C-alpha cells in the first residue's frame, strides 16, 4: 500500500521545476480526462474479465449457483480438458482449418497481381471480390446452406447432371463438413487479403521491374525474384492474422453445423460456447478460454519475433 502510494504520487511531480510542475499537473489531468473513457471501458470490459477467466478456469461453478458456491479445484479442469475427446477433436479441427489460410493467401496473391496490373475496370474487381467480406456471415452461411443442400441444392444438382451419382452431402456429411466450411471461409477471406496484397504490390519500387526487364527477365522470373520476396512482409502479416482468425471461427459453425455432424466441425470457440452457455459448465469453459488465450498469445509473440527474423527486406 505504502509503496504504490508514493510511486503514483511521485511520478508527475518529480522532475520539472515549480512553475512547470503546476503546468504539468494540468497536462496530466487533461491527459486522464481524454483517455479516461477508454481506460475505464478497457478495465471493466477486458482487464477484469481476463483475470476472472483465469480464476474461473481453476474453479467448479455454474451460473445458477451464487458466487458463494464457487469451489476452487486447482488444475483439474485442465487435466479433464486434455482427456476430453471432444475438446481434442476441436483442437484437431482447428489445426486442420489452418490449411485454409495458405490456400486463400495463394489465391488472393494471384488475383491481386492480375488485378493490380493486367486488367481494365480495377475498381469493379476490387468491389466484386470484397462483397463476401462485407456481407454478414449469417446471410452468407444461409445461402451456402441452401446451395449445399444434399438433394435439392444447386451444387449437387449440377454434380448429378454431370454424371456424378453420389455427390457428397457436404455439410451434412461428417467427412465433408469441415472442408465445406473451409471452402466458405476461403471464399469470404479472399477479398480482404487481396486488398492488402494490392496495397503491398503498389509499394514495390517500379525500377526493380524495369531493371529486370532490361536483363530480359520473363513474367515468371519477375514474380519469383521480385514480386514474391517483396511481398514477404505482407504475406507474413496476413498469415498471422489469418491464423489468429481461424482460432476465432464461430459464426459459420453456429449458423451452419452447430459443431456436427458427429462433432466433425466443432472448433475451440464453438466448444467453449456450448460448454458455457448450453451446458452451463463455467470451469471447463474458462479453461478452454485460457487455452485459446495462450494460443493467440503464442502466435502474436511469434509475429513480433518473426517480423525481425524472417521477413525479407
Amino acid at each position, binding site marked *: 500500500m505504502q509503496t504504490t502510494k508514493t510511486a503514483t504520487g511521485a511520478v508527475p511531480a518529480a522532475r520539472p521545476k515549480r512553475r512547470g510542475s503546476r503546468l504539468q499537473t494540468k497536462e496530466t489531468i487533461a491527459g486522464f480526462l481524454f483517455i479516461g473513457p477508454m481506460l475505464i471501458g478497457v478495465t471493466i470490459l477486458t482487464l477484469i*474479465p481476463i483475470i476472472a477467466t483465469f480464476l474461473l478456469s481453476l474453479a467448479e461453478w455454474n451460473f445458477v449457483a451464487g458466487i458463494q458456491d464457487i469451489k476452487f479445484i486447482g488444475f483439474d479442469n485442465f487435466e479433464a480438458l486434455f482427456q476430453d475427446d471432444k475438446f481434442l477433436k476441436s483442437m484437431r479441427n482447428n489445426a486442420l482449418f489452418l490449411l485454409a489460410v495458405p490456400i486463400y493467401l495463394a489465391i488472393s496473391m494471384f488475383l491481386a497481381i492480375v488485378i493490380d496490373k493486367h486488367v481494365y475496370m480495377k475498381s469493379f474487381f476490387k468491389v466484386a471480390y470484397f462483397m463476401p467480406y462485407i456481407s*454478414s456471415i449469417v446471410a452468407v452461411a*444461409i445461402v451456402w446452406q441452401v446451395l449445399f443442400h444434399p438433394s435439392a441444392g444447386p451444387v449437387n444438382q449440377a454434380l448429378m447432371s454431370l454424371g456424378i451419382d453420389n455427390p457428397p452431402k457436404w455439410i451434412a456429411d461428417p467427412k465433408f463438413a469441415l472442408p465445406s466450411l473451409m471452402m466458405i471461409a476461403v471464399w469470404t477471406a479472399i477479398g480482404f487479403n487481396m486488398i492488402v496484397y494490392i496495397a503491398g504490390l503498389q509499394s514495390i519500387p517500379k525500377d526493380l521491374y524495369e531493371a529486370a526487364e532490361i536483363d530480359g527477365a520473363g513474367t515468371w522470373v519477375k514474380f519469383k525474384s521480385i514480386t514474391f520476396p517483396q511481398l514477404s512482409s505482407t504475406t507474413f502479416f496476413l498469415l498471422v492474422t489469418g491464423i489468429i482468425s481461424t482460432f476465432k471461427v464461430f459464426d459459420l459453425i453456429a449458423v451452419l453445423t452447430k459443431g456436427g455432424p458427429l462433432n466433425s466441425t466443432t472448433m475451440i470457440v464453438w466448444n467453449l460456447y456450448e460448454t458455457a452457455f448450453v451446458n452451463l459448465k463455467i470451469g471447463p469453459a474458462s479453461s478452454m478460454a485460457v487455452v485459446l488465450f495462450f494460443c493467440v498469445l503464442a502466435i502474436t509473440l511469434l509475429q513480433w519475433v518473426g517480423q525481425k527474423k524472417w521477413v525479407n527486406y
Partner: protein
Amino acid sequence: MTTTTRTAKVRKGILTAIMFAISVLFLMPFLWMLSASFKIEAEVFAYPIKWIPSQWHVIENYKEVWVGKFPFYKYYWNTVKVTVLTTVISCAVSALAAYGFSKIQFAASKYLFLIVLATYMIPQQAILVPQFILYRQIQLFDSHLGLILLGSFSVLGTFMLRQFFMGIHNEFIESAKIDGAGHWRIFWKIAFPLVRPAIATYAILRFIWTWNDYQNPLIFLRTDALYTIQLAMQKFTTINGEFYSLMMAAAVSAILPLLIVFIIGQKSVIEGIALGGVKG
C-alpha cells in the same frame, strides 16, 4: 512499338474478360440469392437454375419478410439503433483517447498506452464468460445499452486514430496553447477536423462490423423484441425453414444496407484496410 502496345492491350482485354468470368463465378452465391428471393417457392430449386424467374414474386416475398408474421422492420430498427450508437460512441471514445495518447505529454501515458494495446491480443471469446456474469450482475444483460457498450471501447480504433494524430505537427498545438486554448478546444478546433478522413474510415468499418455481429447479440440478448437483424435472420430460418425464397429475401434485406454503405465509402474502406490491414 505500336504493335507491342497493341498486343499488350489485347492481352489486357483478354485477361479482363477471363477475370470477369471468374468474378461472376465468385459472385454466383449472391446472384443465386437475389434471384431466389424474386421467385415463387416451387421454382427455387428448379434445375437447370432459372436465373430470371418465370413468375415474379418480389412484392409478396419481401412483404412477407418485412411486415409478415415475423416482421423485419422491428429488427431492422433495433440494428440501426445499436449500430449507429455503437459507431458514434466508439469513434468518440477512440478519438479522445487517441488524442490523449499522442498530443498530451504526461508521465503515465506511455505505460497506459502499452496496457491498452496489450489488451488487443485478448480474443473476446476468451472473456465472454466473465463478461456475461458481469452483465448479469450490473443489469446490462439483455439490453441494447449493454450491447452498445461492448462495441464502444475499441483498441483498434484508438491505435488507428493515434497514428493519424501523431501526424499532426506539434507546432500547431503549441501555438494554439500560447494563444490560451486548452486541450478541449485544440481537440475540437484543430485536431479533430484534421483527422476527419481517418475517423470516417474507422466509422465505416465499425458500422460494418457491428451490423454483421452475430456472436454478441446471440450471447447478450435474450428477449425476442430486442433482437438484431443477424439473430432475427437465424430465427427466421428456423421458423421458415421450408420457405427458401423468403429466407433469401431476408438475406438480401440484411446485406443491402451494408452494400450501400460500402459503395458510398468504398474508397475509404479499401484504403483503411490496405493501410492498417485491419480486421474486426
